[in-house]
């Protein structure tokens, strides 16, 4: 139902509807354009590093949130598992908050992401901000 296109509203990704390997068909930037799958795979690999340290987790998340897109659930799952490896529950909850904030006016994104992440959240015992009541000021 939700394809990569919906979740990624980045201006340079609006063109890549298909999943084929990218060729420099448009000349709006230099060189080969990274596909959505490559982008996702790169970030999943980043967070899946077994000995990731706290700095790398923070840097990765802050960078990812800086992009003009809501990260795919599989990237978020890798990030949550990285939090587990680092014994950092607070950051895991913060990541969920950031995803909701990142969706902006598109209110349907956050429930979808939670739905996709539900198995991981249950497995790791990560509560959602709503369950803790910190989603209200």
């Amino acid at each position, binding site marked *: 139902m939700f394809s990569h296109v919906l979740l990624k509203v980045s201006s340079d990704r609006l063109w890549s509807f298909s999943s084929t390997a990218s060729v420099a068909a448009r000349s709006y930037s230099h060189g080969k354009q990274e596909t959505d799958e490559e982008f996702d795979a790169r970030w999943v690999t980043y967070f899946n590093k077994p000995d990731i340290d*706290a*700095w790398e*987790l*923070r840097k990765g*998340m*802050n960078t990812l*949130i*800086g992009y003009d897109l809501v990260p795919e659930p599989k990237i978020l799952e890798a990030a949550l598992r990285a939090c*587990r490896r680092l*014994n*950092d*529950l*607070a*950051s895991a*909850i*913060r*990541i969920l*908050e*950031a995803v*909701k*904030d990142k969706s902006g006016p598109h209110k349907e994104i956050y429930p979808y992401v939670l739905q996709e992440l539900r198995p991981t959240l249950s497995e*790791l*015992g*990560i*509560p959602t*901000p709503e*369950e*803790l*009541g*910190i*989603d*209200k*000021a």
Partner: protein
Amino acid sequence: MPPFHCTRHSDKTVAFLPLVAVAQNFQTGRAATVTSAYSPWMLATRVFRLVGNRALSTSICLRGGHGVAKVEDYTLPAYFDRRESPLPDIKFVQQLSPDQKSLKEKEKGSWAALSKEEKIALYRISFKESFAEMDKGTGEWKSVVAGIFFFIGFTGLVVLWQRNYVYGDVPHTFDPEYKQKEVQRMLDMRINPVEGFSAKWDYENNAWKK
């Protein structure tokens, strides 16, 4: 200040440990004397000890132990709640109470075993405000609007006072009798007789047209 011992470390693996301690201390963001056993002076001197293996001339020994600047508070990583940077450089609570320390130990186990209050406590150790709290408005606009109304009102009072005490009388041409004569003269002159002033006057009955 502890005396600086100008010993040389030939064993690099042993020398690595102080570097890790340095890294950890910089991660917690406080190289101050309160939390850690390493004073900034000792931290820096240990770093220098590592690199001083090759050149004694650049080491602190030669400078009499005065080569290190004091670590200023503002140069250390700071905590801030920002939407665009969800994970700040340091945790919000730097000095943990014994309860918090034991909670941190419990965090290393299964998170499902933590109660809701414990999870919230862990969140509050790391972060000051949740996203909802940092995004909510301050209500400052009410103070601003109140201030605007107040000053407009005050200005009104000033204007009234001015009228009374600053401005003199209006000219005699504003008197009602004078105005009456003015209107009569305009009607006699047939000012705008077609569609304007005099057109509205009924000359037969000497009154304004109904």
